[in-house]
């Protein structure tokens, strides 16, 4: 009972923070709202029993990606003209389109949803099972991911270098 309540609480927090992302003006506040969303989603994952994913959500998203984002926001100019008028011209059509998308998604997903099972949240999926599955069955993907990370580092360095060459 308390777990269901917590699940609804975390889901509501995530949605509220996502709405706040749209209406807040300063990018730093948007970033903090996104951090709140991600932490709430980590709570949802933990309640579902996938503790590994919850930990990685906090470590990778909140710990790495969002800290990076906050650094960049602090690096850039505060008096930007995109801070004054925060919405583009497409506000009304985009809102209508978003509502339509939500309606289509709701209709499609509600109809074809598999029969509700009681399994959700009851099978805990901890670090041990994850590591065993990851390094026994999916070791090739593990290696490919490390290659991808190296490629990303090289690409980021190349982008920065190209910018230096163009700008003196």
């Amino acid at each position: 009972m308390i777990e269901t309540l917590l699940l609804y609480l975390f889901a509501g927090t995530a949605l509220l923070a996502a709405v706040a992302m749209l209406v807040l003006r300063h990018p730093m506040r948007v970033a903090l709202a996104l951090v709140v969303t991600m932490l709430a989603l980590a709570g949802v994952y933990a309640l579902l029993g996938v503790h590994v994913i919850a930990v990685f959500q906090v470590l990778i998203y909140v710990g790495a990606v969002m800290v990076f984002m906050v650094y960049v926001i602090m690096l850039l100019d505060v008096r930007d003209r995109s801070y004054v008028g925060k919405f583009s011209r497409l506000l009304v059509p985009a809102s209508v389109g978003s509502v339509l998308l939500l309606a289509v998604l709701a209709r499609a997903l509600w109809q074809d949803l598999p029969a509700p099972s009681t399994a959700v949240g009851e099978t805990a999926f901890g670090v041990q099972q994850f590591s065993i599955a990851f390094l026994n069955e999916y070791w090739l993907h593990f290696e490919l991911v490390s290659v991808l990370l190296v490629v990303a580092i090289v690409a980021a360095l190349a982008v920065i270098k190209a910018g230096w060459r163009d700008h003196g």
Partner: protein
Amino acid sequence: MDKIQMLVALSAGLFALGLLGIIVRRNVLVMLMCMELMLNGVNVMLVTFAQQAGSTAGAVLVFLVFVVAAAEIAIAIPIVLLLARRKHTLDIDAYVDLKG
């Protein structure tokens, strides 16, 4: 309402809000963050159905998605920095002359 239905609704809501944010906001960094929000929404659905099926492959896939998202941000942020250095603004309307 069933628990799975609630999670699917949460996922669809996060995705729609992220898409709305990308179209509606003018700041490039905010648009990037809304893209992250969409990715998070999709991840919620992936985790939900992986957990419902009770498969370890789903959790491994979610982990791989995390890594790809980190790599994507590591490349996207330098590009935004270069754009901002060139035009001295983060307003997306300043980049209408970009082609391709």
